[in-house]
Structure formats: structure tokens, C-alpha cells
């Protein structure tokens, strides 16, 4: 530690030595004692010491010196080192010199030579004390200022806005952050009333300026310590939400002189808060969603089960509709079977009753026939048996009449002619009867004819029985086919035309009442389908057609192929479908029949079956002509 210096300046060396001695004794431990002969040397010394950064505490200078007067020297030294205490030590000092030193060098003391040691000591001690104190003071001030600077730096660096307002509300200090938040560069002049509008302070969420008397700063200036979070600053491009804390500062008398305001931007905090809320909400929503999902799954399962049940029910409905349709057909079908069976029974009975007597009579007959007559007899039988043409009863009557008159021309009596003509026509012989005259004119001619008649009736009866059996079988087969229930649910190859014919067989009864059926069947390859269900389709469509025509009119069935599709069309000449119900006819349970007649499911089921085949059904209808077209893909 460099000791501070005391400089003695005198042109008299003895003085200097004396001073040196005295000062060293009292102050040598704490101070460096230097001497200088004259002013110039002193000034040099001062420069040197200052360059070495020594502190010059006291300078004691003589007044009268050859090179420079003491006051001048002191004045110069004062310029160079104003803190140094200057003492003039002189025997001869003018008032002028002294006052000069006092005025321009801040002379501390003036000591007259010769000096008293104790006085010099005391003066020096005091001077040094003062120097010391001033030194301390200067140091302390420097420290203080450094502190202040650091404080200012801290304040400036803080991410919190700090502002200080005096009692009038004027902003006396605002740190960088505060200025940034407030959007100002310089501190404005303002009064308390102008704070809100000037700084654009609003109450959060209201869009209104913060009421002045409620401003935290204002309240603090009134003595309150305030913490508030409902302020926001409206800058041009954004709104800054704030947390504000204000404290009053009072002086020693207790009067509030300042208020300090700290405020920070809490948008981050708000965002974090809202994020947290949002996350909590999301979690809650997820839980709700999960719960709902489980409920929905359960409901889905229920629905799936119900759907299965419905599908099964639907299948049952289709089946029962089929059976209901069948029920309606049965009466007509029964008729269709009973006719052939009636004929079979009747014919069998006749054949039976003819056979024995005829067999008995035959040998006797042939014995009586001449060879020629034998020929004629065989010819008669031949003609009868080969006659396949069936004429209408009307035509037969006409022919019978002609034959009768022909016979009467041949001299047969009216009754005989009648009887013979009748028999011949029944046998199927309508003309060219010349060959028979020889036989007929025999005395037993009528008996011969009778035998021939019976024989031919036996043969023809057998043929008719065969035909009738075929017919009955066909109906039974059609019935069986219709009633058939395909369990496997597999598609099979089927001839659509056969299916249509089967259905027509079942409706033979109704058709007979006056329906002209026109068939236009093109070559159709077998199609992969559900034949039983398609039969239901044909049944429904044919049934509806016949109903519309009241079993009287024309039913045209066209089967063609168009673009790998089979097109089956049913055209009837019935009363047609009224415009207003055209859009409803495929709807389930829709029917035009009175309650109890018909389920109204017919066309609904038809549509479902067509859909099942990936087909299409459409119709057009005007009075007198209704056409239903069914398209089925031929390639599946």
C-alpha cells in the first residue's frame, strides 16, 4: 500500500530538514514525507507522484520562494490535485498572498514561521483527518455511485417492468422493460388522472379503460399496497395482460413521496393456465369419449343381434308369403289335377267295361267277315286310331250334320244316319266313308260298327289316360317345385324358361278362363341363381298380371338377352297402375286390395329377390298395357 504523501516545499534546506524530521516522527508511519526545493521542483514532484498514482494528502509550502511564489505553487498544485490540503508556512506573507492562496488554492491553513511544533502537529493532524475524511467520503461516494449504477443495471435488466411515480403521479423512473411494456421511449409528463388513457390501461375482459381511482399506483400513492391481475395494456398490435404490484414509499415524516410499481406480462402464465385447463378438459373429453365408445359398442352389438333376428324374420316372411301365394293357388291347382284324374277314372271305367265283351265278340266277328270286309274293318280301325286331330265340339257338330245328310243320301234312315254319324265322328272319322258302306249295309252292320267303336275307344282311351297322367304329374311337379325350400342358400344353374313354365302350369286354371298366353322365349343359357326364389318372382308378377286383367286378356312373356343380362318381361292387357301409386308399389305392406286380401309384401319380396341376384326390376304402365321388366345378370 502506497502511503499517502506529505510534501514540504521551501527554498531553505534547513527548513525542509526540520520539517522532515518533525513530520517523520509524527506521521512517518502513515505517510511518506517528501521535500522539494522550490516551486518548480515541487510541481515536478507532484507530477511524478500523480503519475505513480500516489495520493498527495498535504502540501506545506513556503510563501517566499525564488522561482515561484508559494500561493502560485499551491494554486497549481490545487489544479492538479484538488483534494490535497494546502498549508502555507511562511514568515513573510502578505495579505494578498494569503488571500490569493485561500481564493484560488483553497488554502487550508496558514502557519507563521517560526512555527511551534505542537501547533504544526495539531494542524497537520487535523488537516490529515480532514483529508482522510474527504478521502473516505469520496470513496464512499464512488461506492455509492457504483452501487447506484449496479442497481440501475439490475433494474434495467429485470424482465419485470418497474416504474416509480411521485405523489403527483408523474412517472419519475421506468426501467427498460417497463418502457417496452408501456410502449414508450421517453417518460411522459402526466398527471394521475391521465395514467389510464396515456398508457392505455384497460380492465381485463371489459374493453374499458381502467378506472383511475382503482389503479394500483393511485391506490399506493394513497398508502395501499396493492396486487392486481385484472389489468391489460392495449398496444397497437396486441393486448398484454399484467400482474401488477405497487407499494408506497414514504419519507421520514411518514408522507408518501413515491410509489413503486412492478408489473409483468403474464400472457405466458395465462397461456400455461389455459393449456393446463385445456389438457384437463381434453383428458375429461377422452374419458367421456371412451365411455361413449363402450356404450356405442354395446349398442352395436345389440343392433347386430336385432339385425340378425330381422333377417331371419324376413326370410320367414318370404317363405310364408310364398306359402300364402301357394294357398291361393291351391284351389285352382286342385282343379287342374282333378280334371285329368276325373277323366282317367271315367276312361278306365269305360275301358274296363268295354274290354271283356269286345274280346268275346271279336273272334266271332272275324269269322263272319269276308276278306274284303276284314280289310275294311282294319281300315276303319286304322282311320280311327290314326286320327290325331282334335276338333272343337262346334266343328264336330258341323261335320256330324254333313255326315248325317251324306248317310241319308245313302238311304239310311234318319235315326240310323244320326246314330252312325254320331259314332263315326266320335271315332274321329269325319268323311270319305265310302269304304265303310259294305260293312254298314250288312245286317249286323251296326254291331260291327259298335265293336269297332269300342276297340277304338279302348285304344284312344288309353292314350287319353296317358295324356291325363302327364298333365296331372306336371301339375304335381309344378306344385312340388314351387313349394320346394332350398336350405343350402347356394346358387345353382337353372333354366329360367322352365321356371316360368312351371308357374304357368300352376296358373293353368286362371289362364283357361280367357287369357291368351303369348310366349317369346329366346335361347337362354342356364343362369346361376336361386331358382326357387325366382319362381316366387314369376308367380307374383304373373299373379298380379292376371288379377289386373281379371283373368281375361293377353299375357305376353318375353325372354331375351341384352348385354350379358337376361331380360324377362311380363306384359298384361289389364287396367294398369294409376300414376299416383306408381312410386309406392314396391313398398312393403303397400297393397291395393281390401284388408285381409293379400299381405302387400308381394312386390317388396320380388324386389328383394331381384336385388339378391344383383338384378333390376322396372315397369311402365298405361291402361291396357303394363310391362314389368326383370333384368338378371347372366354372368355372376
Amino acid at each position, binding site marked *: 500500500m502506497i502511503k499517502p504523501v506529505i510534501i514540504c516545499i521551501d527554498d531553505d534546506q534547513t527548513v525542509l530538514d526540520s520539517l522532515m524530521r518533525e513530520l517523520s516522527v509524527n506521521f512517518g508511519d502513515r505517510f511518506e514525507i517528501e521535500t522539494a526545493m522550490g516551486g518548480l521542483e515541487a510541481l515536478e514532484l507532484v507530477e511524478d507522484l500523480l503519475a505513480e498514482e500516489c495520493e498527495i494528502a498535504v502540501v506545506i509550502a513556503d510563501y517566499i520562494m525564488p522561482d515561484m511564489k508559494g500561493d502560485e505553487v499551491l494554486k497549481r498544485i490545487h489544479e492538479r490535485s484538488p483534494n490535497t490540503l494546502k498549508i502555507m508556512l511562511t514568515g513573510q506573507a502578505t495579505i494578498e498572498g494569503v488571500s490569493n492562496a485561500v481564493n484560488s488554492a483553497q488554502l487550508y491553513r496558514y502557519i507563521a514561521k517560526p512555527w511551534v511544533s505542537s501547533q504544526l502537529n495539531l494542524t497537520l493532524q487535523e488537516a490529515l483527518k480532514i483529508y482522510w475524511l474527504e478521502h473516505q467520503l469520496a470513496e464512499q461516494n464512488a461506492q455509492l455511485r457504483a452501487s447506484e449504477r449496479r442497481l440501475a443495471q439490475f433494474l434495467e435488466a429485470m424482465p419485470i417492468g418497474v416504474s416509480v411515480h411521485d405523489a403527483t403521479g408523474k412517472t419519475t423512473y421506468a426501467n427498460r422493460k417497463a418502457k417496452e411494456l408501456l410502449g414508450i421511449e421517453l417518460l411522459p409528463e402526466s398527471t394521475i388522472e391521465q395514467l389510464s388513457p396515456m398508457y392505455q390501461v384497460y380492465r381485463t375482459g371489459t374493453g374499458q379503460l381502467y378506472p383511475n381511482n382503482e389503479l394500483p399506483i393511485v391506490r399506493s400513492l394513497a398508502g395501499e399496497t396493492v396486487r392486481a391481475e385484472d389489468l391489460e395494456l392495449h398496444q397497437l398490435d396486441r393486448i398484454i395482460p399484467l400482474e401488477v404490484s405497487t407499494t408506497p414509499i414514504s419519507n421520514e415524516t411518514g408522507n408518501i413521496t413515491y410509489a413503486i410499481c412492478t408489473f409483468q406480462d403474464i400472457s405466458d402464465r395465462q397461456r400455461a393456465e389455459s393449456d393446463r385447463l385445456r389438457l384437463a378438459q381434453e383428458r375429461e373429453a377422452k374419458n367421456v369419449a371412451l365411455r361413449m365408445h363402450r356404450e356405442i359398442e354395446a349398442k352395436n352389438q345389440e343392433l347386430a343381434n336385432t339385425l340378425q333376428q330381422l333377417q331371419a324374420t324376413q326370410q320367414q316372411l318370404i317363405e310364408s308369403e310364398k306359402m300364402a301365394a301357394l294357398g291361393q293357388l291351391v*284351389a*285352382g291347382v*286342385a*282343379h*287342374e*289335377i*282333378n*280334371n*285329368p*284324374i*276325373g*277323366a*282317367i*277314372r*271315367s*276312361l278306365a*271305367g*269305360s275301358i274296363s*267295361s*268295354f274290354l271283356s265283351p269286345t274280346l268275346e265278340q271279336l273272334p266271332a266277328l272275324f269269322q263272319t267277315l269276308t276278306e274284303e270286309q276284314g280289310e275294311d274293318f282294319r281300315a276303319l280301325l286304322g282311320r280311327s286310331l290314326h286320327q290325331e286331330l*282334335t276338333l*272343337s*265340339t*262346334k266343328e264336330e*257338330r258341323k261335320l256330324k250334320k254333313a255326315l248325317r245328310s251324306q248317310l241319308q243320301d245313302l238311304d239310311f234312315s234318319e235315326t240310323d244316319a*244320326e*246314330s252312325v254319324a*254320331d259314332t263315326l265322328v*266320335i271315332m274321329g272319322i269325319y268323311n270319305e266313308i265310302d269304304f265303310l258302306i259294305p260293312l254298314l249295309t250288312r245286317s249286323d252292320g251296326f254291331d260291327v260298327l259298335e265293336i269297332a267303336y269300342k276297340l277304338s*275307344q279302348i285304344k284312344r*282311351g288309353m292314350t*287319353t289316360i296317358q*295324356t*291325363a297322367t302327364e298333365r296331372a304329374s306336371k301339375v304335381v311337379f309344378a306344385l312340388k317345385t314351387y313349394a320346394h325350400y332350398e336350405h343350402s342358400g347356394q346358387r345353382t344353374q337353372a333354366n329360367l324358361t322352365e321356371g316360368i313354365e312351371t308357374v304357368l302350369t300352376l296358373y293353368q*286354371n286362371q289362364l*283357361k*278362363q*280367357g287369357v291368351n298366353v303369348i310366349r317369346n322365349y329366346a335361347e337362354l343359357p342356364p343362369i346361376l341363381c336361386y331358382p326357387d326364389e325366382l319362381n316366387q318372382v314369376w308367380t307374383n308378377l304373373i299373379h298380379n298380371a292376371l288379377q289386373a286383367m281379371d283373368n281375361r286378356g293377353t299375357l305376353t312373356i318375353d325372354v331375351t338377352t341384352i348385354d350379358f343380362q337376361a331380360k324377362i318381361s311380363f306384359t298384361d292387357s289389364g287396367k294398369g297402375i294409376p300414376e299416383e301409386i306408381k312410386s309406392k308399389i314396391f313398398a312393403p305392406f303397400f297393397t291395393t286390395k281390401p284388408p285381409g286380401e293379400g299381405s302387400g309384401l308381394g312386390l317388396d319380396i320380388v324386389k328383394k329377390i331381384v336385388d339378391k341376384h344383383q338384378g333390376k326390376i322396372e315397369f311402365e304402365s298405361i291402361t291396357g298395357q303394363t310391362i314389368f321388366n326383370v333384368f338378371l345378370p347372366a354372368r355372376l
Partner: protein
Amino acid sequence: MSKPVILCVDDERMVLDSLRMQLSTAFGIRYTYEGAEDAYEALDLIEELDGDQISVIVIISDWLMPGIKGDDFLIRVHERFPKVIKIMLTGQADEAAINRAKKQANLHCCLLKPWSETELLETIQSALSQL
């Protein structure tokens, strides 16, 4: 006086023919046996025969036929010729139709197909004996 006629009316030819054969075998030359394939033809025939002074005494008719049905037919016949014995021979029994024919056509009886020969012949016999 010509022989009376037994008329069979049925749209099914095999029924018509077998019926006539049965009847002619049973009743022989006492009657003429005629057939018609529908009601209109039958009505025309009846009129024609009537014009020729030939009477139809028995009609055996089917019910389900093209054109008018059996009951309507017999009712019409009854209006013109109430004395004719009318028998329905049908493969399908429609209760209402039969009752109607009984009430309005004095239907003698209704037989079902397939018919029993005996039953048929006895019915006709009894009806004829009542004449």
C-alpha cells in the same frame, strides 16, 4: 219328336269326351249326347236345338270355365228353360257359387271331380225319374 239331349259343358276336352262315353254307355240310344266347351257355345246350342224342337233335359256343367262361370250359365239356362235338370260337376267347390246356383237355377246337385260313375248315374237317374 227327336230324342232329348243330355248336354255336357266343360272346357276340358278329356272330361267332356269321357263323360259322354260314360253316359252313352249307360243310357244308350235313349238320348243324344252333346258337348260344349264353354257356356256361350252351350247357350247357342240349346237355342239351336230348341229351334229344331229338340229339348235338352239334363245339363252337366263344370263351374270354372272361360267366359261366364258355371253358376251364371245355369242361372241363365234356368231363366229360359226352367225344367232342365242342372247338375254341376266341378273340380273346385266354391260354396257361394253353388248356393247361388241352387237358389237361382234350381241346381239339382253338385258333384266333385273326380266323380264316381255310380254317383253320377244315380243322380241323373233320380232326377230323370222325377220328371
